[in-house]
Each structure stands twice: as C-alpha cells, then as structure tokens.
C-alpha cells in the first residue's frame, strides 16, 4: 500500500456500489468547511471512504481533524443534510480516529484554495521547517505573531515585505 495517506483516502476495499459512492463523493465535495468556506471536507482530506453498511445503507466514514475542533459536529450535520437534499438518504455518517488525520492529507487543490483565500497552507510534515510564504505577495520573509489564531488550526503571521498580517494553517 502506497503510504498511509493513500490508504486512508482511496481505500476502496469496502466501497459502496460504484454509482452510489460516486454520487456521495460528488455531494461531499460541495460540503464546505464552516470556518474556511472555500475548502470542502474532501479538500481537507477528512473523507476516509464511502462504505457499504451490512444492511445496505451507505456509510460515510470521516476523520476528525483537531481533537477540540468545534466544527466536528457541525460538519457531520452538514454532510447528513447535503446527502438528504441530494436524495441519497438514508446514509450513515461516522467518525473514525485511526490513523489520525494530518495536514498532509489536505489535497493540492485544497492548498491552492487556502492560499487564494489568504491563508498560507500548511507545509508537509516532512518539510516542517520550510519557510512560510505570504499568500498575498509570495515573500518568504514572514514572522510568527501568535501561535494561536482565530481557530485551533491556524497561527497568526505577518509579512515583512508587504507588511500584511495573514493566517497560517499549522502543520499538524
């Protein structure tokens, strides 16, 4: 298996029937993170897989992000509502802890959307010491203002070139 990330996201061993799974995934790509409305939960790497329950009901298996993230319950409800609205109910939604989510699971698309929105995306864990570039002007001359931002996942930084503050999605 090509690495934990691949296994967690693309594991299709207990995949629901092709067309159902594809439709569910398509809906989940429209469920946006409540705090960062430009990225979907799929962009964030939260979708582990879509399974077929033993009773035939499809199951969406998600990964929680930060332990104390207050959006976790909200996201579950948003997923249930979106699936119901798309006529795909009944569907069960559950969270699985293991393997633990990492910011490495955020897709390339997700990273691009974060930067476009003004949030510096997280570095890959293997490059934890890489400089954080300003999402506005691209300069790598940035400094940490506060390890804690408006949400547990973000830190506050300042660009020393264009002087604008910005948030940085922390590597986790």
């Amino acid at each position: 298996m090509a690495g934990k990330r691949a296994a967690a996201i693309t594991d299709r061993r207990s995949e629901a029937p092709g067309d159902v799974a594809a439709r569910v995934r398509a809906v989940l790509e429209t469920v946006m993170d409540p705090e960062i409305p430009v990225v979907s939960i799929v962009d964030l790497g939260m979708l582990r897989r879509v399974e077929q329950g033993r009773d035939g009901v499809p199951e969406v298996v998600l990964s929680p992000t930060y332990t104390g993230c207050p959006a976790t319950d909200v996201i579950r409800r948003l997923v249930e509502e979106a699936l119901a609205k798309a006529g795909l109910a009944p569907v069960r939604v559950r969270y699985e802890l293991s393997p633990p989510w990492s910011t490495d699971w955020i897709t390339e698309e997700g990273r691009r959307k974060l930067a476009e929105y003004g949030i510096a995306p997280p570095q890959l864990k293997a490059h934890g010491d890489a400089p954080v570039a300003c999402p506005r002007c691209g300069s790598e001359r940035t400094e940490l203002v506060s390890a804690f931002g408006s949400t547990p996942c973000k830190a506050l930084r300042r660009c020393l070139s264009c002087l604008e503050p910005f948030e940085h999605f922390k590597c986790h």
Partner: protein
Amino acid sequence: MATATAEKLAPPKAADLVTLALRLGDDALVLGQRYAEWVGHAPALELEMAVSNLALDLIGEAQLWLDLAGRLEGEGRDADKLAYLRDVLDFTNLLLVEQPNHDWAYTVLRHYLYSVYHRLLIEGLSRAPEEAFREIAAKVLPEVRYHVKFAHSWVLRLGDGTEESHRRLQAALDRIWRFTGEMFTDDELTARLEAAGFPPLASGLKAAWDEEVGRTLKDAGITPPQPRQMITGGRIGHHGEHLGHLLAELQFMQRAYPNREW
C-alpha cells in the same frame, strides 16, 4: 526486574480500564475548564486566543476519554453524562489541575508541569495493549506536544523576564510543588494495569519528568522548595474545596435544568 512475556500477561480488568479512561478524561476536563476561565480576562489579546484554543484541545481530549470510559462501562453513560452528572467524590482528576489559576505565572507553570507528565503518559499509551487507548493517544499526542511548547516558552519568558515576572513565577513554584507528587504516585490500579502490559502510568514516568523539568526550571532561574509532603487524594475522589466550585459552574445548566439538551 522481571519482565512478563506476552503469554503470561493477564488481560486488564474492565473496571480498571474504565477508571483509567476516567482519570485521563477528568484531568483534561478540569484543566480545560481552568483555561476556559481565562477567556475574557487573559493578559493580552493573543493570549485570549491561546487560552480558548488550549481549552478546546483539552475539552476535546476529555470528550474522547470520557466517551471511551462510558462505552467500556456499558451502562449508557457518555462524555456528557460523565462530565455533567457526577459530583466531586466521583471525580478522579489530579489535585494539580483543579488548583485555581491564581495568576498567569501560576497558570503557565501548572500547565507546563502537567503537560510534560501528560506527554510522557500519552507517548506510552500510544503503545498500550488496548487499541482504544492507542487510538486516542495517537490522536492527541501532536496537540499535547504543542501544549508543552507553549507552556515551556512562557515559563522561560517569565522566569527570565522582569523582576516581577520572576518573583511571581518563583512564588508559583513554591505554591504548586506539593501537588506534583501525585502524578507519580503508584496505586493498586496502576500496578494492576502495568502488570497487564500497560506502559508506565505513574512512578515510571518520574525520572524523565525530573530531568526535563529540572532543565527548564534551571533555564528559568527558579528553584523548587525543599522536599515537602506531597499532597495526594484526587485520584480517589478526595478533593479540596476548589473542585466543588469548579463543578458548580461547569454543571450549572444541568443542575438547574436536569436532562435538558440544546
């Protein structure tokens, strides 16, 4: 020291696993509540964000452990029921985490002393024989490491800061030291679980804690008071006056409107 091979280990008792999960959950819940008390009163705006994020991490962790305790117990209790419907005598948290915040120096020092122990404990638990414990430990470990970094940087900042910050930090250490022994106090539960293959849960963590904390205190220029009687009792529900007040606030809504949900 004899080591037990896998075949000779007796499985842990279910009741012991419940109690361990409760202890882990109660420590996190009470400390989370203490951090939440700083919201609106933190010394700086940046720290308002910090305390709420730290509190959220801890309360999220408490939810995981308390939900596990409820599942293992099998009597229909979940994290909400355990957090809101137990009284003081049934709480199993360390006395260390229920102490009031006093001032910022005491708060960060308490957090640092607890977090180093907590990180050592969680690192061990990520290799526990029970999968449910391993899973939660693996999930919270990166966040606990973050907490150690945060608290450590503040201990150094205050210790090596102004005359006042140094004085307050030393006073905090003098006041808190007697509560640090409980983290490393073995009891029958820890003995049974360790015999069943669990990693060190108490005294086995002390050497590493002493070394790491010792270096930090030296860097911060503060000295622990002379050896004193260590105060214990939290693990068996013998709490001081403080926990009662904390729970009265935490549980107010359930006490005023029993079984109400919103």
